[in-house]
């Protein structure tokens, strides 16, 4: 990608704290006060916005539906520079409504599914992941991309891990932090913050999560918790835009480059 997407690094670090999200506070803060162009908007790097003295993303209304959210994300990601905090707050404002995303909610008895919702004009991938009871992912990295995770049904558990050191010996990986992500909460993740495993800890309820990855990627690294060994994995989609899209062989055989969904 020729344009660079810059993120506020300080904000990344704040994401590791599992603090309560007070949604109404965010909404007041974001859309009632004038954003000072010197402090915030100049970072968007967009000529038109600089000329107007104001980044046009400030005029985005709070998203009421998933469609609103997608439209807003397209506008945000049309800019050259994007603020992580802004995206996280914007995604928090969408109050999950099952009717919006029902057609993407396809569950599988054996593993969690990834269902593509929008391709974000090539700047991001938006997808919905469906987790049946007790389903979880491997420990994985994020291919140098930025990942936003929003719970839209149930709840998920996130275990954070540090990257294994380069030494030859095997070391077990232990989580440095474990936390629950609740309905409508948004978490941010990137390679600088480490690795994580996401899972549905419930034995009674399903979980559904909305993920945004920018830039999009289709390969990442997965890790064995017992040894720290890593392996490349291809990320694939169970469905795209509501239609089932099978990958490679089904049933029975495993392949070395595992079709790992995360």
């Amino acid at each position, binding site marked *: 990608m020729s344009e660079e997407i810059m993120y506020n690094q300080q904000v990344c670090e704040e994401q590791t704290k599992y603090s309560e999200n007070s949604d109404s506070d965010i909404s007041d803060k974001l859309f009632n006060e004038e954003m000072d162009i010197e402090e915030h908007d100049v970072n968007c790097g967009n000529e038109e916005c600089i000329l107007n003295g104001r980044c046009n993303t400030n005029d985005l209304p709070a998203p009421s539906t998933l469609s609103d959210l997608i439209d807003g994300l397209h506008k945000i990601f049309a800019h050259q520079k994007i603020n992580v905090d802004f995206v996280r707050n914007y995604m928090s404002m969408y109050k999950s409504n*099952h009717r919006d995303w*029902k*057609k993407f*909610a*396809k*569950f*599988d*008895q*054996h*593993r969690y599914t990834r269902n593509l919702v929008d391709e974000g004009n090539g700047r991001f991938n938006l997808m919905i992941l469906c987790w049946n*009871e*007790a389903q*979880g*992912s*491997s420990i994985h990295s994020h291919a140098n991309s930025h990942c936003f995770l929003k719970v839209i049904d149930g709840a998920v558990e996130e275990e954070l891990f540090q990257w294994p050191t380069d030494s*030859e*010996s*095997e070391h077990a990986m232990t989580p440095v932090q474990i936390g629950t992500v609740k309905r409508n909460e948004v978490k941010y993740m990137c390679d600088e913050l480490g690795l994580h495993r996401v899972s549905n800890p*419930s*034995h*009674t*309820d*399903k979980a559904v999560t909305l993920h945004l990855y920018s830039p999009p990627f289709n390969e990442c690294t*997965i890790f*064995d*918790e*017992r*040894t720290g*060994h*890593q*392996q490349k994995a291809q990320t694939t989609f169970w469905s795209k835009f509501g239609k*089932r899209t099978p990958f490679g062989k089904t*049933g*029975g*055989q*495993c*392949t*070395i480059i*595992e079709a790992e969904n995360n």
Partner: protein
Amino acid sequence: MAQSLQYFSSSSDSEFHDENSEDLSHSELDVLPNYLTHDPQTWKSIQLSFNNFTVFPEELGTFVNLVNIDLSNNGLTYISDSLLNLSALQNFTARNNLLDGLPKDFGTMRTLETVNFSGNKFKEFPMQLTELENLKTLHFGANQITYLPNAIGNMRSLEILYLGGNSLTEVPATVGSLNHLTALVLCDNQLNSIPPTFVNLRKLQSLSLHNNKIATLPPEIVSLNLVELSLRNNPLVARFVQDLFFKPPSLLELSGRVIKIERVPYSEKDLPSRLICYLNSAQQCVNPMCKGVFFDSKVEQVKFVDFCGKYRLPLLQYLCSPVCSYKPAYAESDTDSEHSAKSKLKKVLLG
């Protein structure tokens, strides 16, 4: 195709939005509304989750054409026999309630295909469930059962069995008879091992074993065609375990071994019955090059085996003596050792 239908299970809502369906979830109900009970035979599906039904509403027993009921999240403490009138019922869901028992004749509901009692207060696995020969899906997660009856092997139609989040310390060998099983969830229990009869689950695609107390696995597991296997948070043996203790065989054992290996003929006329039983209990040494047998005197050995090119499983096997060693045909790698752990297989994954 029946199998593809299993994949397209989207949110459970669809059952309750077709004709003759009613969605009354989140409605603060503790009795059924009049318009519903006015014409009970019209209804095929009723969604009653997130209400205040602490007992099974009696009038539901008159809805004789019901196919689907969902009574999840109601604080339900008791199901009366009126449920048994529903002779067409296929799917009964009652997650997150306070149930600790079922009607005595629940096993007579032969039309049931899906039952979900996850998140209740069952301390024992209800035997009535084992009578449901047509049941395809059973969710019994997050209860407090410590024991599974052998009769679970009678549930021959089971395809999905969810038992995660209980207090099971073992699984009966009869689970291996459920040869239609495609998904088996046993995570979050206290299992020490799984029975070798699992090798008979030829249709099993996913096996969830994470968060248990499993140290080794039976070698038979490698022949399963699993697409998903979760083993994290088990005290799996990480290194090759050399058996430290080998009890030398008794004279009885040595004689038994000779008889078996040399194929000395014997019959009930020659020997007392207890010796016949003893001789019949001979087990074959795992080493295919060794034609040995053993009775009680055996060596436990842990071998690491690659599985599907992904997993490195510690398998517990028995050899007839410490000097008997071999390379199993199914393993791509050798006995694990300090050296081979570093140089061999980097593609290890226990998700």
